[in-house]
């Protein structure tokens, strides 16, 4: 009886000790209790506003002095470009800054002999001119000789007077789209390739080779009616006789013509010609397939030759 009581007590003590073996708690000192006060927002906003006004005033002052210097030293078309907010070839660094309405704080300027390169200080915040987002301005003897813009299709470099015009920009964008389309085509993604060619065609209307590429893509995607129209447009857009006369110089184009004519014959045999010549627009939904169901190949007798 005595031994059993001892055992019970020992067991009880063990259980109690085990129960006490919880996670060790360190009482942290509270950092905020009832009755304390939270900081005033008014003061924080007022401080931020004061800082903002000071920073802005300094920025404006620098920008205005750059602008004044730019306008004082410009002439003719350069002056007009500064006012329009467009970097043009032949500008000085201060004129380029004035055209983008920026101060030197927005740029990192590196000089090496006669060459100077200006790039945005923060890449995510590139300065913009009237044309687009400027990612690099190159100077030769303190005069702009190349400007690089970040466009949707990549970087576009303006290094000649022709590149600065609206047509020049459209051509550069179309070329970038064609390059992208060629890459998709090479990768076997014909739908995306066709999309890029279509978009390029909107920018570069008078390009027979682009029309031929669109026709080929449509043909490969088994859209015969649209392909037929495109092949016809391609052939109509060419001065075939002149191209034939030029011979080897246009061998590639001649080859395309031959292929287009060949495909047209095949497509015309397969499907009825479209009723009225519709104006095919890029990005249109394809018409329902008009290709007749495939016929089984004619059986050939043994020994028969073509």
């Amino acid at each position, binding site marked *: 009886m005595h031994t059993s009581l001892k055992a019970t007590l020992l067991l009880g003590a063990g259980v109690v000790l085990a129960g006490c073996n919880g996670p060790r708690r360190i009482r*942290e000192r*509270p950092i*905020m*209790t*009832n*009755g*304390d*006060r*939270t*900081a*005033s*927002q008014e003061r*924080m*906003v007022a*401080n*931020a*506003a004061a*800082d*903002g*006004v000071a*920073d*802005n005033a300094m*920025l*404006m002052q620098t*920008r205005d002095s750059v602008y004044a210097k730019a306008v004082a030293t410009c002439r003719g078309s350069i002056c007009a470009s500064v006012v329009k907010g467009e970097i043009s070839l032949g500008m000085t660094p201060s004129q380029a800054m004035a055209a*983008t*309405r*920026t*101060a030197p*704080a*927005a740029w990192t300027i590196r000089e090496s002999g006669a060459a100077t390169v200006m790039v*945005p*200080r*923060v890449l*995510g*915040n*590139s*300065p*913009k001119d009237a044309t687009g987002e400027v990612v690099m301005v190159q100077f030769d003897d303190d005069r702009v000789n190349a400007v690089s813009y970040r466009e949707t299709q990549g970087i576009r470099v303006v290094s000649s007077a022709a590149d600065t015009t609206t047509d020049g920009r459209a051509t550069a964008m179309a070329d970038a789209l064609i390059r992208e389309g060629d890459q998709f085509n090479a990768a076997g993604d014909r739908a995306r390739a066709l999309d890029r060619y279509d978009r390029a065609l909107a920018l570069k209307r008078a390009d027979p080779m682009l029309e031929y590429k669109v026709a080929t893509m449509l043909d490969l995607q088994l859209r015969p009616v649209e392909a037929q129209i495109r092949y016809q447009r391609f052939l109509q857009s060419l001065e075939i006789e002149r191209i034939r006369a030029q011979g080897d110089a246009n061998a590639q184009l001649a080859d395309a013509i031959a292929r287009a004519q060949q495909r047209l014959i095949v497509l015309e045999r397969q499907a009825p010609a479209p009723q009225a010549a519709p104006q095919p627009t890029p990005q249109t939904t394809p018409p329902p397939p008009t290709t007749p169901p495939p016929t089984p190949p004619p059986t050939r007798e043994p020994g028969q030759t073509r």
Partner: protein
Amino acid sequence: MTITTTVAIRRLAAFGLAAVTLAACNNRRVTRVDPASVTDLSGRWNDVDSKLVANTLIDQTFAGPWSAQYASAHGGTPPTVIVGSFRNRTLEHVPIGMFVKDLERAYVNSGRVRLVASRDERTEVRDEREDQQTNASAEARARIGKENGANYMLQGDVQAIEDAEGREKVVFYQIDAFLVDLESNQKVWIGQHKIKKYIDRRRIGW
């Protein structure tokens, strides 16, 4: 003491007791206190948490270089911000709008950031503008297509972790806010505030 007197005394005592009981029920007391004062009652999310979050985010947003960098690259024009979704991912009711409005107010009043109406707010404004095209006079009419596009969108969320044992409870809140460049999807600023609360529900205590 006569029976009548005894009855009268008893009635008086009963009346007095009823009056005391009724008076005891009228225990409501309302006072106005300083909105900046800390008053924690239940341990749930309250005005103090909201204010602490707002203060921290305001402080962090103006300490970051994003608005100055934008202004520098754009000829001193401050960036334009739109408030996007700010989600409450806790099980508690957290009125997100309170600290977001504090942040909006700070943006506008500081002059360092421009703010445009959010998706919900602008619907009403557009309706009114549309109505003006028919009903307002030509010189007073608000023109269409003159809205200011935002450069950055403010997004964020509130998350919480709870741990409880017996009468003790710990709640940890993490509030994240970030500004995303609408063209490049780049996050240009991330603000964060953490709140840890220890709640001890004593049965007897002073």
